[in-house]
């Protein structure tokens, strides 16, 4: 990662979209940055952290996105430019506050950066958060490369102050995680002083500026006026550009990552002279006059955008109000089925749509090759998401599986978001039967804990991670205690927000800056809430099973089991060596014979174990095995040997 505080305006640097966003915030003089880890947004805060000390910026991982935005708003109200960044799911968590923030307005510039994950490669849902801007009246900027990511973020702070409202920069995985050249701007040398001016004035008593109760409707009206002013600015924004022939056979309207896909598709099809591209960067409110002018270039319009027909519908609305004698426009996009309304796009999909509309054939590769390649792909084994070798969750889910089987009352587990989401996959033995948003595991199972009167007696085990616990599960635990639910919560404490990149959290004792900080001790917290707490080691399967069986048999009350064992990747990075050298003794391994039937490779399934079909024995894959030794306890023949290194 290059230093993003290089003081060399005009220099070109290769930056990730997220790094560029961070740089843009720096160039705007941001002094408060808050976030919660979430792919594809995490690097934004991580990048700011690298320069925070030198540039006197407060950078933090907040406990969740709502608090992150509230914290940033606090800074903004007190006269400090602030930025909150998150993924699409995080926006949902923050949205209650957003809906009020748009009413109150802001102090100094407040920018909300939301990074969507089209294709939901790392998310539990697929959402196009641009819609929130339409819903809650927020000026929206969509960068199409790292340069724009920087420039738009920088501008967003000025815009926010000029308009007096929060502004959103919308990114997607492809923008956030692609590197393109960025010409750097100037870094401000301002000193930031925080002071909240709107205190009670004894001479002129009156309501605070940043309150919303009783009167939001009028504030809503004022908000619309702010958006009208934004519209004015957007009409002449350089972020909206047309490229192509004066009159085009087809006008492609696009934004974000799709700008590049469209350009590549048109070049591939060699249609630069026939197909024009209207690239939009300010997409809410839509710069209507500007767009109207571009619509005159063609009678065919194709919308190339990801997930929702956000621009498509806005333009269609616009078109519905064109003068009666305007040329008839044919729209192509999601409504026509030319562009899919889910998952991410790519140049191929854009090319297919354009070719179809233009009536030409698009055959990117030889038909025979295509057939052969498709056939060959079928032979590729289905590769599931897997827990890492050495992951403590493997021990936890193995114990959950056996405990539920022994208990015999059709019990099940409910999980949610994190590495332990794999509890619902083969790697976690399909134990988590329900999985939704952060903290929903606890919430849902707490609800099921109050179904006694309907004859419900299946044991339910809620599973959450350590970071998720602080983020979202605590209210569910409080509710369970308060409403006397039968409630068992396993907190998988691997000392990290692992799934998103091992960021620290309130239980780890370190903050985003790497400084030592207060630990919010989860056992103490849970006990103080009135829950009974047990602590187990995820690698001690026997004890975990015994604990779970006892808790399930007891039935009533709220119980927490902290499964404590460090994430293997953290441990490996720090210790730089395996704890054990593990191997399978082929003389002891009985493989497929009765008494084992390949338990380690067929059922337990750690990626570090492989089945040697010819020899009929299991083997350790030395390049994958982490040397944790958990499989040693699982082997029924004692054929797996671990030797301390």
């Amino acid at each position, binding site marked *: 990662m290059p230093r993003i505080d290089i003081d060399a305006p005009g220099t070109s640097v290769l930056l990730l979209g997220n790094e560029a966003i961070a740089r843009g915030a720096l160039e705007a003089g941001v002094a408060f940055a808050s976030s919660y880890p979430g792919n594809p947004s995490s690097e934004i805060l991580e990048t700011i952290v690298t320069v925070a000390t030198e540039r006197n910026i407060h950078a933090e991982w907040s406990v969740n996105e709502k608090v992150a935005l509230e914290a940033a708003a606090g800074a903004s109200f007190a006269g400090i430019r602030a930025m909150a960044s998150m993924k699409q799911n995080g926006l949902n968590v923050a949205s209650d506050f957003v809906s009020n923030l748009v009413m109150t307005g802001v102090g100094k510039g407040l920018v909300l950066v939301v990074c969507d994950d089209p294709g939901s490669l790392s998310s539990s849902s697929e959402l196009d958060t641009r819609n929130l801007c339409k819903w809650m009246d927020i000026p929206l900027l969509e960068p199409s490369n790292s340069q724009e990511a920087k420039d738009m973020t920088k501008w967003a702070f000025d815009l926010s102050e000029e308009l007096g409202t929060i502004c959103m920069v919308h990114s997607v995985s492809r923008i956030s995680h692609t590197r393109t050249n960025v010409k750097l701007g100037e870094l401000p040398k301002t000193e930031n002083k925080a002071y909240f001016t709107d205190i009670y004035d004894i001479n002129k008593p009156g309501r605070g500026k940043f309150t919303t109760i009783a009167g939001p409707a009028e504030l809503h009206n004022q908000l619309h006026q702010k958006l009208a002013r934004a519209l004015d600015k957007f009409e002449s924004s350089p972020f909206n550009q047309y490229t192509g022939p004066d009159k085009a056979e087809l006008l492609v309207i696009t934004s974000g990552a799709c700008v590049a896909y469209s350009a590549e598709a048109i070049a591939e099809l060699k249609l630069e002279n026939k197909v024009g591209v209207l690239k939009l960067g300010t997409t809410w409110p839509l710069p209507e006059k500007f767009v109207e002018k571009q619509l005159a270039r063609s009678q065919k319009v194709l919308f190339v955008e990801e997930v929702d027909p956000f621009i498509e519908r806005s333009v269609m609305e616009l078109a519905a109000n064109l003068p009666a004698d305007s040329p008839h426009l044919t729209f192509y996009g999601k409504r026509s089925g030319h562009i899919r309304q889910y998952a991410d796009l790519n140049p191929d999909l854009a090319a297919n749509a354009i070719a179809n509309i233009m009536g030409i054939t698009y055959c990117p590769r030889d038909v025979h090759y295509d057939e052969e390649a498709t056939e060959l792909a079928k032979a590729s084994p289905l590769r599931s998401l897997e827990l890492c070798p050495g992951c403590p969750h493997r021990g936890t889910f193995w114990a959950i599986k056996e405990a539920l*089987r*022994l208990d*015999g009352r059709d019990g099940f587990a409910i999980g949610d978001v994190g590495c332990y989401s794999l509890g619902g996959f083969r790697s976690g033995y399909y134990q988590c039967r329900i999985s939704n948003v952060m903290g929903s595991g606890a919430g849902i199972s707490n609800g099921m804990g109050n179904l006694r009167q309907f004859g419900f007696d299946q044991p339910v085990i809620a599973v959450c991670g350590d970071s998720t616990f602080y983020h979202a599960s605590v209210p569910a635990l409080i509710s369970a205690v308060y409403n006397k639910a039968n409630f068992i919560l396993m907190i998988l404490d691997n000392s990290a927000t692992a799934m998103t990149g091992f960021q620290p959290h309130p239980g780890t004792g370190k903050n985003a800056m790497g400084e030592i900080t207060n630990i919010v001790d989860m056992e103490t917290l849970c006990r103080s809430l009135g829950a009974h707490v047990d602590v187990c080691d995820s690698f001690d399967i026997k004890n975990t099973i015994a604990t779970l069986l006892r808790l399930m048999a007891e039935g009533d009350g709220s119980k927490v089991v902290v499964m404590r064992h460090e994430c293997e990747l953290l441990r490996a990075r720090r210790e730089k060596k395996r704890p054990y050298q593990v191997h399978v003794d082929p003389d002891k391994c009985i493989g497929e014979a*009765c008494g*084992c039937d390949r338990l380690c490779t*067929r059922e337990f399934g750690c990626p570090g174990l492989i089945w040697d079909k010819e020899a009929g024995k299991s083997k350790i894959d030395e390049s994958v095995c982490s040397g944790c030794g958990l499989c040693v306890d699982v082997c*029924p023949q004692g054929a797996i040997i671990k030797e301390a290194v």
Partner: protein
Amino acid sequence: MKVRGSKELLEEIIGSGLCVYCGACSGGCPYLAPYKGRVVLLHNCALSQGQCYQYCPQTYTDMDELSQQIFGVPYGQDEIGVARETLLARSTNAEIREKGQDGGVVTTILSLALDEGLIDCAVTSRMSVDKTPAGFLARNQEELLKCSTTSYEASPVLEAYNRIPKQSTEKLGVVGLPCQVRALAKMKAYPPENRVNVNNIKLVVGIFCGWALLPAEFHQFLTENYDLSQVVKFDIPHHPEHTFDVYTKSGKKSIEINEVRKFINPACSYCPDMVAEFADISVGSGRHKYKGWNTVIVRTKTGAELMELAKAKAALECQPLPDENLINLKQAALRKKKRALANIVAKTGSKKNLLYLGVSPALVNKLLT
């Protein structure tokens, strides 16, 4: 017989109300585990044939084959099986007698076998503090005494046997109910693989059994009515008494036997073996005026040698089994056989389908008349 796998074991036996919770299917692999009265499949075993099915006493059992293997005679010639000698016996050791169910004979002969090095380890059933029975490995008299008296519940002793490391060379004595003794006989006929060597078993002691109680349900009943940590012994005195007695440190409480009969394992109604016919020595309680004595049936050369040793060392006090007692014993044993056959045929609807029982049609007809 067609040996099948765990899937079929679960369907045909465990899921069909035929499981006697003997433990023969468990302990030798990570897939099956006995827990609170149920045999649980922990993970999915994909084998189409398994030792769990093979040694289960409730899967097809050729009784003649087993009888020939152990005694060299066909099955069914005597109501109480092969009997070299029948007698009454009791321990000469006061502590053993005091802690025993009746005469303490099982504890005595196992203790003797351990002392003489005939066995290194006894596989028996032991009750926990809350009176849950499970398999236990005893290596001296002190440990054996912890196994004294019965819970009357099915106890998965053979799981403990199966768990013994396969490289172990310890000589073993195993105590079991008739169903467990039958499972051991199957193991001897078809020695297991990847497990402790069945030839390590030097002695099999069988316990007389009319029926066993369902562990989970009966235990629930007991917990609701008694402080089990205070209980020292359970006993069912013989007919015409009709109680189930619970001895605590402060005295005896009696339950109507019919209250307890509700908890009889239904699988027991298909069992024809009251006296553990395939054991070396079978032991039951003495009746009426022989309360405090055990009825003993010596079956094999091994059993006979051990009994001789016990007499020679004066570890046991013995007397001949009175004719009246022998007659009653045979009648009781025959009644159980007849009842079992009748129940089996009622369940299957055909004399040709005897569930697991492989006996000659002639014997079937004899028992059904």
